[in-house]
């Protein structure tokens, strides 16, 4: 079961299911503001940096590819109001020292041009928070921590804007879902089984526990922590179960959720104990890594795992944005391993940067007159369907993050591709070309986009 071949086949399948792909290039899906100023001969830079070689690199690496594909697309389609688009980026390797140097270099070399910076890591956001405010530079980040968006007291909105809801709000949203669905979650008790560090611990906290407890969903006070290198987490999972948990929630990614799921199968408790997590657990990687262990019904261990889905996913093929990005992905012959959240969402980030730039230029009259403060005004007032609906860019008053979320469940396709399989008998099994077979992961939204509760206290 080679992962690359699996993903290759996945791309092929998506391609086959999308007749549009076989035809001409799709139009750009989003409804951009008309240019009132001609920017011919000028350059609009997309600045971004983040961890491309450190611990989360396997998620964030495709961002570079997505931005470079987007830049290529725009430049071959006449640019932004005539201006050429350029990509300026730096790898920080998860090292804050490198982040600081990269920021110093960017803000000094591009003192005039740098009004908007794309970041990935919460750590980077926390480090640069005060400096961005002092230098008046707007920053977009995918999912920031409370400290990076609102400062240490959680009350001071800064210059960073996240497109996803805060992890703690995602958790509160999940509690709402649990409380509203007692038939799926009878007598719910949530236990945290998660990675260490700022990301792993970001979903929990006293405020979240109080909120969920108020909804009738108690949350265990002690989180169970495991490391990405642990090969056996039976002890952690059993600790949580012994303390009464029947829902395990995880802020981890890749092998993390897959390991919890397989441990539940090993214990024979995969029917009794539900598994859930942040938006990152709904990534394809997890669906494929989860196939190492099959449940009693023959489906992979992560079948039925719940998670947040604050944007559209590759499998929601009736959406123009997803169709367009899929087509671009194939046209640029991207490695199948890059077909993850980061690639999809980064196209959206570039789109929202372009929209914000056009709006600001229209207001101030020229590209050189754009400042960080002007950009900020645009970003805060903009209510915009990114790429025509990938997610909504809307910053509520005093808020710094996206507030809409959905709960989705991970399933595996049935043989007719008409819906999820109920067991190994009717599941779609794809030959990986090396003697193995794999199931095709599906991400099925269970709710509409709804506002998340505000739990940052």
């Amino acid at each position, binding site marked *: *079961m*080679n*992962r*690359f*071949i699996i993903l290759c086949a996945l791309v092929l399948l998506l391609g086959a299911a999308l007749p549009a792909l076989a035809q001409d290039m799709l139009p750009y899906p989003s409804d951009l503001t008309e240019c009132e100023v001609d920017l011919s001969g000028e350059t609009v830079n997309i600045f971004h940096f983040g961890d*491309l*070689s450190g*611990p989360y*690199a*396997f998620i964030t*690496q495709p961002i570079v590819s997505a931005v470079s594909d987007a830049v290529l697309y725009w430049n071959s389609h006449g640019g932004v109001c005539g201006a050429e688009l350029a990509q300026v980026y730096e790898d920080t390797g998860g090292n804050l020292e490198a982040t600081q140097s990269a920021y110093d270099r960017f803000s000094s070399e591009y003192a005039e041009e740098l009004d908007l910076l794309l970041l990935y890591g919460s750590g980077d956001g926390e480090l640069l928070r005060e400096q961005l405010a002092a230098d008046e530079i707007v920053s977009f980040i995918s999912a920031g921590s409370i400290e990076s968006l609102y400062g240490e007291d959680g009350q001071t909105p800064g210059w960073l804007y996240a497109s996803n809801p805060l992890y703690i709000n995602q958790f509160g949203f999940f509690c709402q879902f649990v409380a509203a669905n007692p038939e799926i979650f009878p007598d719910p008790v949530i236990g945290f089984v998660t990675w*260490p560090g700022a990301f792993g611990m970001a979903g929990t906290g006293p405020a979240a526990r109080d909120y969920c407890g108020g909804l009738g969903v108690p949350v265990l006070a*002690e*989180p*169970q*922590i*495991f*490391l*990405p*290198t*642990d*090969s*056996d987490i*039976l*002890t*952690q999972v*059993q*600790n949580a179960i*012994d303390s009464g948990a029947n829902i395990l929630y995880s802020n981890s990614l*890749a*092998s993390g959720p*897959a*390991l919890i799921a*397989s441990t539940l199968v*090993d*214990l*024979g408790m995969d029917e009794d104990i539900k598994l859930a997590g942040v938006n990152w657990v709904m990534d394809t*990687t997890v669906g*494929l*890594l989860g*196939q*190492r*262990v*099959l449940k009693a019904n023959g489906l992979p261990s992560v079948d039925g795992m719940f998670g947040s889905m604050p944007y559209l996913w590759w499998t929601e093929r009736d959406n123009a944005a997803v169709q367009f990005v899929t087509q671009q992905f194939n046209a640029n012959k991207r490695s199948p*391993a890059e077909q993850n959240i980061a690639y999809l969402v980064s196209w959206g980030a570039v789109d929202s940067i372009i929209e914000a730039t056009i709006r600001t230029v229209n207001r101030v009259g020229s590209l050189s007159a754009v400042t960080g403060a002007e950009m900020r005004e645009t970003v805060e007032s903009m209510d915009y369907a990114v790429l025509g609906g990938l997610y909504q860019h809307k910053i509520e008053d005093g808020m710094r993050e996206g507030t809409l979320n959905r709960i989705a469940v991970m399933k595996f396709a049935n043989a007719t591709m008409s819906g999820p399989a109920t067991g190994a008998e009717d599941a779609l099994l794809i030959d990986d*070309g*090396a*003697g*193995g*077979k794999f199931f095709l992961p599906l991400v099925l939204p269970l709710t509409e986009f709804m506002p998340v509760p505000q739990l940052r206290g």
Partner: protein
Amino acid sequence: MLEIIKKYEAQLRWALYALGAALLLLFLADQLAGKKAARILQTLLSGILVGGVYGLVALGIVVINKASGVFNFAHGWMMVVGGMIFWSFFSVSEISLLGAALLATATMLLAMSTASFSRLRQRRTQLLVLGGSLLLTALMTAGGSDWRWLHALSGAFAGAMLTGLAVERFAIRPLIGQPLFTAVLMTLAIAEVLHGVTQIAWGTVELNLPIFVNPATGSRFQPIRLEGLRELLDGLVIVRVELVIAFVLALVAFSGFIIFFRYTSVGLAMRATAEDQQLAQAVGLRVRVILAISWAAAAFLASIAGVLQGGAVGLSLNISLVALRVFPAVLLGGLESISGAFIGGILIGIVEQFGTLINSSQQVGTNLAPYLVLMLVLVLKPEGLFGEKRIERV
């Protein structure tokens, strides 16, 4: 007062140890009082099984230390490289003939010229290189994907040989005559370079290495559920088959190395080299060759451990971090002791699991307990449980 202390020093020390042990037991009894018997047994079992892999990693570090006195900080990255090479042959259906031939030839060239490059001028060596490369290439590529275990094993073997020999040849050998401190730093530098090379060649994406798969079902092996003991222990105890396989493999590797060191001439030569390099050279042992063999052997052990770990959790750069968790095991068992490495690995595995059982919300098991054990060992018994006690003034 001081004289009394000096007179009864040994007794006093034992009394202190006993007091410490009693306090530790009391603490454990207090912490474990509320736990079910099944949990305690399960934790012990998990600790022993996970510790088997730690022991295997520790063995690789000990082998190099035994032969050359160098503590290898690059072992974790040698695990990653070994696992990745295995993956390349195991999971890719069309193996590139050119790539395999290049790997085989490079390995044979380095292996045959261990003593010196001038060896390559001899006709006999040239023939050996040619024959060996052809054989290795054939093993790595012959047959279809049904033979992928053979491909992967021979590929990983060649890869490990190449890594170990190249590291010894180009980074460690030029340091002969320098203080050991320099060689230890060199292993840190090698770790960085291997890190970069792995990233260039395989990227940072987490790879799936399905080696613990039941061919009949396509799923990982079902764990053994001790249902019969459920009543007795007030809970279910399970034994994960792949961990047992890993443990058994580790045990086999250990026995192999113990036999190798005791009963083969190369093994004896290695021990002699470790004892005194100059003396070994004086009595006619080829110290360079022996050092090269020990690095290749360590790389081979690292590959096995990398494959086992990658098979259990998925193959990513994070695997290198396992070596950090094994350092306490190496010191606990004793830097020069083969059986000590194994027992140290298992003890650290148990310590980790019990630490996690008692308090996993503060990472006591993984981030504190092993290093506290390390500090205790250093203060109480620096040579470790089975290491050689050296007469040395501090």
